[in-house]
């Protein structure tokens, strides 16, 4: 097992059809080992350094867990700053896949230059939204030193304009807000045919090949998990098993951009027509990309009088400290990260971390009986190469974060 982990996927096929699927996520559980005996603030900093890919989602979940454990009530504006940083990270992570991975699926070159510009926007965004780098300081300290954290509106507006322009040029061929107005498959097909970006050409290819419905599966979206339920799932002998292969009362769930964006008019329309197969899943990533831009803009327009409870779609689940069902010294943080829901749980003892647990979205989605495993059983009939292409698309649509290996084994 490597430190970074790997998802191994094996399809067993007979007569051109998949009849069995093995999905195994081989990721070591390292958080406890690395964070034990660290102070809460150091642990938060280390979490975002160690898990650098979704560093802000990790930091949000970590600080929320710590503040709950310490009984600290987070100020609404601080929470909102965290959510704004998290939204840009989610946008960046989706853009990464769309600009670098999606072109490869249609034999085009990755758009390194656009992603490079977006990485720069992300860096400036963090500086503009949280100029004194206080958002991930445990609340009591931030408030003692400097009061509320405020964003520089002129700079953040300029950055959002630049981000919107970049997405228009590299992904949508129109503003993200205009693209979000697409209502159904006909409008999507028209866009995909006329738009000159790799993302549009991938969607066009799926529709042209009639692959919209490939990989449909029956699985529920992960429901809200309250602190009492998480405590039940994580505070017991088989917590390690839950972190590796999470399920609730024997049921598996998915947590993906598709399950989050299901309420969008376009995704509902595509779901009705094509189910939750390849097309709907890829489009859900595009929808979430555009939604992140829209939510950042909307939040900015509202000014600093932010809602205390950010959108669950893209935000930090607001754990009410007074409802901490886990007891003093224990806390959970629940965050919608780019690839799905991320849960951190901490138990503090003598002012240090005694126990630290992380449940990552990949473990739900790449569970041996999870959404990917179920979807891979519904590929269109074909030879090994054909099956591998469809499976590769499905895996990318669900985005495991770590590298994956894919094998098709045809039975005689």
């Amino acid at each position, binding site marked *: 097992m490597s430190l*970074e*982990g790997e998802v191994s996927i094996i399809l067993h096929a007979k007569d051109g059809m998949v009849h069995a699927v093995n999905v195994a996520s081989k990721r070591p559980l390292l958080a406890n080992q690395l964070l034990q005996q660290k102070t809460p603030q150091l642990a938060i900093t280390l979490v975002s*350094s160690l898990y*650098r890919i979704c560093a802000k989602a990790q930091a949000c979940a970590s600080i929320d867990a710590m503040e709950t454990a310490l009984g600290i009530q987070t100020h609404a504006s601080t929470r909102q700053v965290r959510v704004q940083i998290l939204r840009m990270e989610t946008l960046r992570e989706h853009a990464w896949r769309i600009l670098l991975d999606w072109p490869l699926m249609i034999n085009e070159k990755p758009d390194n230059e656009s992603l490079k510009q977006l990485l720069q926007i992300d860096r400036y965004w963090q500086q503009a939204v949280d100029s004194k780098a206080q958002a991930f300081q445990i609340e009591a300290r931030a408030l003692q030193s400097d009061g509320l954290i405020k964003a520089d509106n002129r700079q953040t507006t300029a950055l959002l304009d630049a981000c919107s322009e970049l997405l228009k040029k590299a992904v949508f061929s129109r503003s993200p807000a205009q693209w979000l107005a697409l209502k159904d498959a006909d409008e999507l097909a028209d866009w995909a045919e006329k738009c000159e970006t790799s993302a549009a050409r991938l969607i066009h290819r799926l529709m042209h090949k009639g692959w919209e419905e490939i990989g449909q599966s029956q699985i529920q979206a992960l429901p809200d998990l309250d602190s009492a339920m998480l405590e039940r799932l994580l505070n017991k002998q088989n917590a390690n098993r839950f972190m590796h292969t999470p399920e609730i009362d024997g049921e598996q769930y998915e947590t993906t951009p598709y399950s989050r964006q299901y309420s969008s008019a376009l995704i509902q329309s595509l779901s009705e027509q094509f189910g939750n197969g390849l097309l709907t899943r890829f489009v859900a990533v595009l929808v979430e990309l555009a939604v992140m831009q829209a939510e950042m803009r909307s939040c900015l327009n509202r000014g600093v009088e932010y809602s205390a409870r950010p959108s669950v779609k893209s935000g930090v689940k607001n754990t009410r400290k007074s409802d901490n069902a886990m007891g003093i010294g224990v806390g959970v943080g629940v965050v919608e990260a780019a690839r799905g829901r991320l849960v951190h749980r901490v138990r503090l003892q003598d002012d240090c971390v005694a126990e630290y647990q992380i449940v990552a979205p*990949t473990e739900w989605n790449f569970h041996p009986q999870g959404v990917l495993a179920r979807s891979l059983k519904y590929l269109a009939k074909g030879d090994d190469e054909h099956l591998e292409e469809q499976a590769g698309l499905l895996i990318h649509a669900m985005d495991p974060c770590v590298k994956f290996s894919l094998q098709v084994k045809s039975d005689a």
Partner: protein
Amino acid sequence: MCLAIPARVVAIEIETDSATVTLGNVRKNICIALLDDVQIDDYVLLHVGYALHKISEEEAARTLAMFDEAELLEEFEGDAA
């Protein structure tokens, strides 16, 4: 939830925007197109074949020391992306 492991740049090929990095005895070719001004001996964090961030030697040393302290580096098998 990808763990970011620092790797040291030991060779750069400007024409292809690629570099060779090492972690311990393992060498790997990566793309450096997303970063500006990568130099030999810089430390970078990797993500699926790309250098994602440059980090200071001090930060790299701190992170590697943490892995070492937790006796994790021996588990490293080589694909740092």
